[in-house]
């Protein structure tokens, strides 16, 4: 008998159909992956399962019985625990308070006992093999990777029958991913169900027993993982065959130095980096979470103050602010980590987002040149193949991939020739990923210089010309194209760790 079954689930948001009569079934004792492009309906389905949304039509059945109660509380009582990609932690509460939220041990006066809370949290962490996170720390003081670990621990804390992992590895480093996959496997072996949602094919292949693919809100099919090839899965997701994920790589770097950093440092996080980025080059940056890559990108983009010296196109500069970085003499543009909170004005039209960084170029006598603005927008939309109804569509209503393209369009609308891509494929579907990689190579070929950080080492190996590995705020290795392999990069991050 199926532990979980969903029948004919339909959900609309305004005019958009997110789920259109989809169905799904999973058994106890398996890790079941749910795959699909962004906008395929995975997130909506998970949110319905976990009670965050209510379906317009259809029913959910647990152990053959229809679930009638709604809301996160009902789902929790039914034994469903979600681990959300958009974290559900309360940043102003401590780690322990978050994990046991609503289930805290109370003193006779109905107060929450901090001591019991922290002890329980420490015990849970020990049991799960997590270390390095103090139970009484405020969540807002943790890194995103640590927050994701806490979110996972929280999902596991109630020992649910159904654990939902929604892109739970997006901010994790390799050994943490291994840890999570191991936990998922063990739970399945213990007779529980784990739903695993990820864009990373490698992980899915390693951990999932079966795969269900969604497309356009409908179920395409379910298969044993071992019985189906990667290409086939991708074809199911796209509804067509993808030629290739990674583009051809030709060395396009010239001798011209776009960016030269010496002794670049930021607080305690970045301790003196020297490197050069050349015109036409894609320079990869690898590193474990919190080893200085964020500071590196933010410093170059002018968003944090830094020490050391910088030369851009051969001229020494000091970048004072993002505005200064984007200005004509310098031209450094950042594609930030979190597009919803750092990249886009979600409630504003695509048009305004695209030209936001380039307005000074589009203004005449203090007024915005409407025609020039429209030209820039339509050119970007067609060049990046952004799927929008009209330039007036609100950015927040686009799918993840299209949102990322809008951010990219914003960078390209400026005069910047040095682009900083910070994890550009995070939460982006396969089709758009391929487009972004192709775009990066094209840009390099046309003379841009690109610094590229990704949490997915495979992307660095296949897209970058060179990769520098960051460890404890220093460069622990720089690998040229002919030496690039996931293995080597991983080892370099590890060696750095040991050395420090």
């Amino acid at each position, binding site marked *: 008998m199926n532990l979980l079954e969903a029948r004919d689930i339909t959900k609309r948001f305004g005019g958009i159909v997110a789920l259109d009569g989809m169905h799904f079934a999973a058994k106890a004792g398996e890790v079941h992956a749910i795959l699909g492009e962004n906008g395929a309906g995975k997130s909506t389905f998970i949110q319905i399962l976990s009670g965050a949304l209510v379906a317009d039509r259809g029913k959910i059945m647990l152990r053959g019985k229809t679930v009638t109660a709604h809301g996160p509380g009902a789902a929790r009582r039914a034994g469903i625990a979600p681990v*959300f990609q958009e974290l559900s932690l*309360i940043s102003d509460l401590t780690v322990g308070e978050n994990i046991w939220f609503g289930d805290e041990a109370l003193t006779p006066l109905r107060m929450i006992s901090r001591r019991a809370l922290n002890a329980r949290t420490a015990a849970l962490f020990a049991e799960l093999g997590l270390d390095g996170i103090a139970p009484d720390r405020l969540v807002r003081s943790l890194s995103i990777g640590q927050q994701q670990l806490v979110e996972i621990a929280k999902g596991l804390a109630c020992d649910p029958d159904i654990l939902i992992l929604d892109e739970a590895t997006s901010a994790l480093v390799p050994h943490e991913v291994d840890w999570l996959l191991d936990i998922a496997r063990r739970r399945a072996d213990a007779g529980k169900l784990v739903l695993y949602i990820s864009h990373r094919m490698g992980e899915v292949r390693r951990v999932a027993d079966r795969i269900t693919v969604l497309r356009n809100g409908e179920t395409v099919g379910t298969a044993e993982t071992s019985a189906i090839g990667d290409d086939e899965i991708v074809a199911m997701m796209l509804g067509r065959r993808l030629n290739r994920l990674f583009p051809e790589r030709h060395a396009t770097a010239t001798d011209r130095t776009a960016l030269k950093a010496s002794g670049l440092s930021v607080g305690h*996080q970045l301790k003196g980096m020297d490197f050069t980025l050349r015109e036409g080059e894609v320079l990869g940056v690898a590193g474990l979470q919190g080893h200085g890559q964020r500071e590196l990108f933010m410093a170059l983009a002018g968003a944090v103050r830094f020490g050391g010296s910088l030369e851009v196109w051969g001229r020494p500069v000091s970048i004072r602010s993002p505005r200064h970085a984007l200005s004509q003499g310098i031209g450094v543009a950042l594609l930030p980590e979190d597009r919803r909170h750092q990249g886009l004005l979600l409630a504003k039209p695509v048009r305004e987002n695209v030209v936001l960084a380039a307005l000074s170029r589009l203004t005449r006598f203090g007024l915005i040149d409407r025609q020039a603005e429209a030209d820039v927008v339509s050119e970007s939309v067609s060049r990046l193949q952004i799927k929008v109804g009209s330039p007036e569509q609100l950015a927040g209503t686009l799918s993840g991939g299209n949102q990322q393209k809008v951010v990219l369009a914003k960078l390209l609308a400026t005069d910047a020739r040095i682009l900083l891509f910070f994890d550009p494929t995070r939460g982006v579907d396969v089709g758009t990923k391929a487009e972004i990689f192709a775009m990066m190579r094209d840009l390099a070929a046309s003379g841009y210089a690109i610094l590229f950080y990704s949490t997915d080492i495979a992307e660095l190996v296949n897209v970058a010309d060179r990769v520098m590995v960051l460890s404890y705020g220093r460069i622990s290795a720089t690998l040229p194209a002919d030496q690039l392999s996931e293995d080597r990069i991983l080892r370099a991050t590890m060696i750095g760790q040991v050395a420090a």
Partner: protein
Amino acid sequence: MKRSLSSLLGRTDGWGMPLVVLFIIAGLIELMRPGSFGLEQLALICASAMILVFVATGETIVVMRGGIDLSVGGTLSLASVISATRADLPGLDLLPWLALILGVGFLIGVANALIISLLKLQPFLVTLATWSIVEGIALIVQPSEGGTVPPVWFAWGYSRPFGIPISVLLLMLLMLWWAWFRRTRMANSIRAAGSNERSAYLNRVSLMGTNIAAYGISGVMAALAGFFYATQTGAGSPVVGAQYVLPAIAAVVIGGTSLAGGRGGLTGTITGAFILNLTGTVVFLLKLTSYWQIVAQGAILVLVVITGSIVEARSERSGADR
């Protein structure tokens, strides 16, 4: 040492820094006028600060919930007016009437919460509107300052149970209540909802429930302030509440509670209310001409907030790995 001090000050719900400021101010006063903080003097200071403390208490909870409550101005007035118009009724007991007055405050708070939650409206505008409505009702109930408060109540405002002035006692009770409340699930839920509504919902927090609790407490506290005003002055005023709205918000902010929601607490707010109360004394003792006193109060307010935010920024930088 310096770093750990600043991180300690920044971390304790934001009240560390205001407390330091309060001690500096109190120290200055004691230096300029020794004996300023004897028991009798403390009782006077507390008595004059209590109304603001009550209003600011409710405001703190609402701000933690991520909202703001301007309607306390109306509620305070209405409560004072109700307290002062019913002296003619025979056999008035203090407690049932207090319960009725607080009930009115609670209902106003619940109305705010329901409007905000059900229609998903911005608290600032909703409570701006309800402030006007409630103050209007107060003016209809009693068109001007006056009325009479039953002598029993009037006596209550100056009573000294266990030899402790009632205001000091109430302040102690309030702090005890906070020591309890801040550790309850409701307080955590309010914080959670104020920090991030979506996350809070996913954590099974009832958004409307926390709103009702927060605005309900705020309404009750404002009504209590109005009652206290009436018992202290022996009269009600349909417009007095307006004087307390912005100072209450100022006390909350000085106390380190972030207007963005999720953070802060009552300890800071009470500290903030006393800072506001004592700055007047500092400038009085500095013998500034009275207009400079007013300028100085504004300047002190800004300076306290600036130092607070600098300390917080420092502690955040040194405490977190980002």
